[in-house]
């Protein structure tokens, strides 16, 4: 905090440099937990299924017979090249798998984020504007109760209501059979728009609706509280008072003066929520059999495929650090006071 008013470029550079040890710590942690753990991954995955000679061969092929420190070095080296290792069970490259499955997770999380922002900002600012009224109480209760609901339970209740009872939305999967749009980005919504395939768009939306709303509501619950607090603070600030004093209509004060400023911290929290979003995505994908990275992670865990788990967790770790970097840079760009 000593040096204020540094340039944006310097701040960004410093922030990127700070990212390096952070990634390193996370990678080390993942490695220590999954690799140094007693019981080695090959035994865990194959156990009694293969003769010892075969197991030794698999172990050698995956480089798991080398000293740990060498393995650690190789792991870090591979990461630099964007190589996320290999699954023990399927011998498949985790990197290939991430490329195939990540778009599904990305589509889910981005849509959920959209839902979260609409719900959070909508209810939060109403709650803040009409402080201590029934609207406020309702908004706050919504925030607390939705936060208390386990995401998978919420999803199950939605499935029960909208799929089993009302037959409005399908209860799982990514889209109807043979309805996938032509593969361009892997994001079905985007791909169907790019190829003008509206029936695929519609199908994707139907399958996406429940998981995205489930995940979005839970994240939105956290945003509600935050937006409300900032709305309250902003509405009490001097410049809002000044705007009112100038005779500007109340709705205009709220919308133009207060609302926009109350939103700045939301960017930060949206970024912070990204980690929660990934965790939530794992549960949502499991609940709705959504074929993304989260489901894949659970599969790896079930087959005790630790190198596979390590690959995906590492990818998530890098993603989280990258997003927090991005959010900080955006914040510094929007709000010059942050550049210390």
């Amino acid at each position, binding site marked *: 905090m000593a040096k204020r008013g540094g340039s944006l470029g310097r701040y960004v550079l410093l922030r990127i440099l700070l990212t390096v040890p952070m990634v390193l710590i996370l990678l080390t942690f993942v490695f220590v937990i999954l690799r140094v753990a007693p019981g080695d991954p090959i035994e865990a995955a194959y156990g009694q299924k293969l003769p010892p000679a075969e197991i030794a061969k698999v172990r050698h092929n995956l480089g798991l017979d080398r000293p740990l420190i060498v393995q650690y070095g190789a792991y870090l080296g591979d990461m630099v090249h964007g190589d996320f290792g290999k699954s023990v069970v399927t011998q498949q490259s985790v990197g290939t798998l991430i490329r195939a499955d990540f778009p599904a997770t990305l589509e889910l999380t981005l849509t959920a984020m959209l839902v979260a922002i609409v719900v959070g900002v909508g209810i939060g600012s109403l709650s803040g504007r009409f402080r201590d009224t029934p609207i406020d109480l309702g908004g706050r209760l919504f925030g607390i109760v939705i936060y208390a609901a386990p995401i998978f*339970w919420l999803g199950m209740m939605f499935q029960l209501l909208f799929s089993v009872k009302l037959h409005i939305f399908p209860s799982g999967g990514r889209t109807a059979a043979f309805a996938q749009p032509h593969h361009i980005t892997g994001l079905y919504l985007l791909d169907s728009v790019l190829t003008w395939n509206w029936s695929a768009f519609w199908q994707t939306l139907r399958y996406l609706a429940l998981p995205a709303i489930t995940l979005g509501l839970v994240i939105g619950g956290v945003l509600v509280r935050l937006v409300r607090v900032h709305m309250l603070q902003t509405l009490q600030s001097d410049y809002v008072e000044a705007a009112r004093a100038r005779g500007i209509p109340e709705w205009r004060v709220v919308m133009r003066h207060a609302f926009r400023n109350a939103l700045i911290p939301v960017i930060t929290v949206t970024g912070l929520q990204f980690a929660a979003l990934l965790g939530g995505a794992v549960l949502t994908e499991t609940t709705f059999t959504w074929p993304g990275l989260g489901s894949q992670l659970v599969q790896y865990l079930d087959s005790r495929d630790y190198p596979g788990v390590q690959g995906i967790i590492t990818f998530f770790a890098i993603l989280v650090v990258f997003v927090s970097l991005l959010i900080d840079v955006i914040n510094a760009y929007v709000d010059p006071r942050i550049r210390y």
Partner: protein
Amino acid sequence: MIARKHRLRLLPERWLRPWREAGRFARTVVWVGAGITAIFVFIAIFAPFIWHYSGTAYQGIPKLAPPSGKHPFGTTSINFDVLARVLYGARLALEVVGLSVTFSVAIGLPLGLYAGYRGGWQDRTLVMVMDSLYAFPGLLLAIVVAAFLGRGVVNASVAIAVVYIPQYFRVIRNHVISVREEVFVDAARALGAKRRTIVWRYIFFNVVQSIPVIFSLNAADAIITLAALGFLGYGVNPPTPEWGQDLSRAIHDLASGVWWTALFPGLAIVILTTGMTLLGEGLNDIVNPLLRRVGIGTQTPAIGTVAQGGAAAGETQVLEQ
């Protein structure tokens, strides 16, 4: 000697004053939250006296029977009584929450005290490590640790504890840093008190009051994390009654329209978590006068995983002004 007398007279007053000053709303919130939590504690302790089926009894119980007088919450596909599962699930949930929070306090508190008082590179390193852990999705962290440790009550508690250590560390460390500069600490230092005396006698008691607040917020969060671990198959060993595991089984019943196996364990989670959140939120409003002073009113920025980041950020902002 003087400083000590002063502290003894001042401390209870300092701890009670916020409660007296708090508005009726904040107090109601605390009471409602404490009431709900107390009911669940009661259920956990007296489960065998409340309901005659045990959580793992299956003999003479029909399969997937809808709620009736004999089985008010219905029965599951493996002949368990859902009400019994829900009641005994409370027992396990509170057990794991208690254990995990104890573990994280036991590690986070000393580390926070050390880093905050010591400062220097030790502090920076610890902050770096804790921040990295904190940035990582809590649930994924718990999953990885649980996968490594295997299932079980203690293992699940450790897995959950790992998630909250950075939060205790963070709050305690930041608090220590602000208390460290107080006059009474300076005075103790000037009187030649040893570092250990200063930390444990003067700083510890001032800092420890923020623990109950984080405790109840984390406890709420821990219930959900435990359920999530159970749901993914990394909680406790079946057939131990655990809400998340029961829900993961209930998901297969949904397609045939069976709602009771899914609804009741989930409701139990929601109600208990809401209770603990209210308790934590209310305490936070009362104990954290910094937030009241800036006029945020009866609401803290956010709860759970973000809460500490939010609250900590709020504090520093206020301090800087």
